[in-house]
């Protein structure tokens, strides 16, 4: 028999009952926030025969062999509820929100647990700037008032004399080396920008403030619209508190053809890196083709938001059973 967890006290929660009560109280405040604003709370499937294509996200897989099983019995666990929520929006749901568990392979550390709690919501008729305002209102409601600061992605790189939209891959790598960070072999241009951002910038973001970073490089648009211009920028934002990324939001891409092209590009990148080729979510593409209302949406890492509210330095301080005790 394969057993799990030999240590005799590993059955116990990793945190105190007081901490769990504090977490429950914060979750209540989140529910109150959305109830007051009249958004519809929804629940969507964790499992799907289709999966996210983003090369930097690794979907976990579940075996299902019963009636209605997909080919090979393979169901992918959501990395976020974005695709089914957009299908609800396209079906005319109006503003919606949900709190759910999401799953990401390979992600474990002081700020990561492969299973974590996500808060996600969508605002038809809004753009990402309006949604940034609402995110700061939520943060104030859950963590207390703090000043709000907004900077563009390009502004973050100005101290390093680097234009993240125009610089070549080699110029980006040289900037990383000047900062003392040798880019590992095989890192592409966006990877080097991620290196600089995560090593040299993020630790200082959101200290005592709610800090938004917006207008990302078009190559990092993910599911955001791209605002044409010189340079073109993605209508995407991230929110940081105390050196931690808390939220990622988009002025949502609604163009089915462009979405399909981005999926194809993701799959090419995945192939070049030897990563799995997950089935593309055709129902999302059909929903976009039928008409997604212009909207903005955002995903918040709720465990991290609670870490800030409770002054915790490690995600295990807000989870009853982190991975090693699960």
């Amino acid at each position, binding site marked *: 028999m394969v057993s799990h967890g030999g240590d005799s006290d590993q059955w116990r929660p990793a945190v105190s009952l007081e901490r769990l009560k504090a977490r429950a109280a914060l979750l209540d405040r989140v529910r109150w926030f959305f109830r007051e604003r009249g958004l519809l709370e929804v629940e969507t499937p964790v499992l799907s025969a289709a999966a996210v294509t*983003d090369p*930097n996200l690794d979907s976990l897989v579940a075996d299902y062999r019963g009636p209605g099983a997909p080919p090979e019995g393979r169901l992918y666990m959501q990395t976020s509820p974005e695709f089914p929520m957009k299908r609800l929006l396209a079906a005319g749901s109006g503003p919606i929100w949900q709190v759910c568990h999401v799953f990401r392979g390979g*992600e474990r*550390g*002081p700020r990561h647990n492969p299973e974590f709690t996500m808060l996600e919501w969508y605002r038809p008729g809004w753009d990402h700037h309006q949604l940034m305002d609402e995110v700061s209102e939520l943060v104030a409601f859950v963590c207390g008032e703090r000043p709000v600061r907004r900077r563009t992605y390009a502004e973050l790189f100005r101290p390093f004399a680097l234009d993240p939209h125009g610089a070549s891959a080699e110029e980006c790598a040289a900037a990383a080396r000047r900062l003392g*960070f040798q880019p*590992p072999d095989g890192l592409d241009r966006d990877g080097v920008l*991620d290196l600089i*951002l995560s090593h040299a910038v993020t630790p200082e973001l959101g200290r005592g403030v709610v800090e938004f970073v917006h207008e990302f490089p078009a190559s990092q648009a993910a599911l955001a619209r791209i605002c044409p211009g010189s340079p073109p920028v993605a209508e995407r934002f991230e929110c940081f508190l105390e050196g931690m990324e808390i939220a990622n939001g988009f002025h949502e891409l609604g163009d089915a053809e462009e979405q399909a092209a981005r999926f194809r590009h993701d799959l090419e990148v995945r192939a070049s890196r030897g990563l799995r080729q997950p089935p593309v979510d055709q129902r999302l593409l059909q929903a976009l083709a039928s008409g997604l209302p212009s909207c903005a949406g955002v995903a918040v890492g709720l465990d991290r938001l609670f870490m800030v509210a409770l002054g915790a330095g490690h995600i295990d301080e807000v989870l009853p059973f982190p991975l090693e005790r699960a």
Partner: protein
Amino acid sequence: MANYSTNEFKSGLKIMLDGDPYAIVENEFVKPGKGQAFNRVRVRNLKTGKVIDRTFKSGDSVEAADVLDTELQYLYSDGEFWHFMDPQTFEQTAAGESALGDSAKWLKEQDICTVTLWNGEPLSVEPPNFVELKVVETDPGLRGDTSSGGNKPATLETGAVVRVPLFIEIGEVLKIDTRSGEYVSRVKD
């Protein structure tokens, strides 16, 4: 040669970087939500002791360092090398000054030491946690003063100098904690 994935990184793991063996001191997983995941590690060069920071792409592999801790008996020093023997195989190994470092001053013939080998060559030598060494030089003892708490320097047979209580005399054998370099007790015959 074996490889380690970044998923296996933890402190103490021995890896090869730029041709040198290193031990991982700290390992941090860093990942932007929509971006590249990294393992940011602090590593110690096992030859020089120098500590540096390195960043890996998560999922990358790195060569394992063939580093092995062995329990060897110290035989003698010829001034340039310190000679050790495997008590089971009687095989002998010579370690240079860089491998000995501070450990040299605690080594007494026949003591069992932890010798860390890299590709069969000694990288470092750890003396036993406790050694028993004779006092060869110290100020005259204050007989009977076992309570004042004062201390004085004493030179031991290996050349090490430790602080000892005032009542200790030349010729006495002392138990010393080599990790702190502190006197523990007298050893009764």
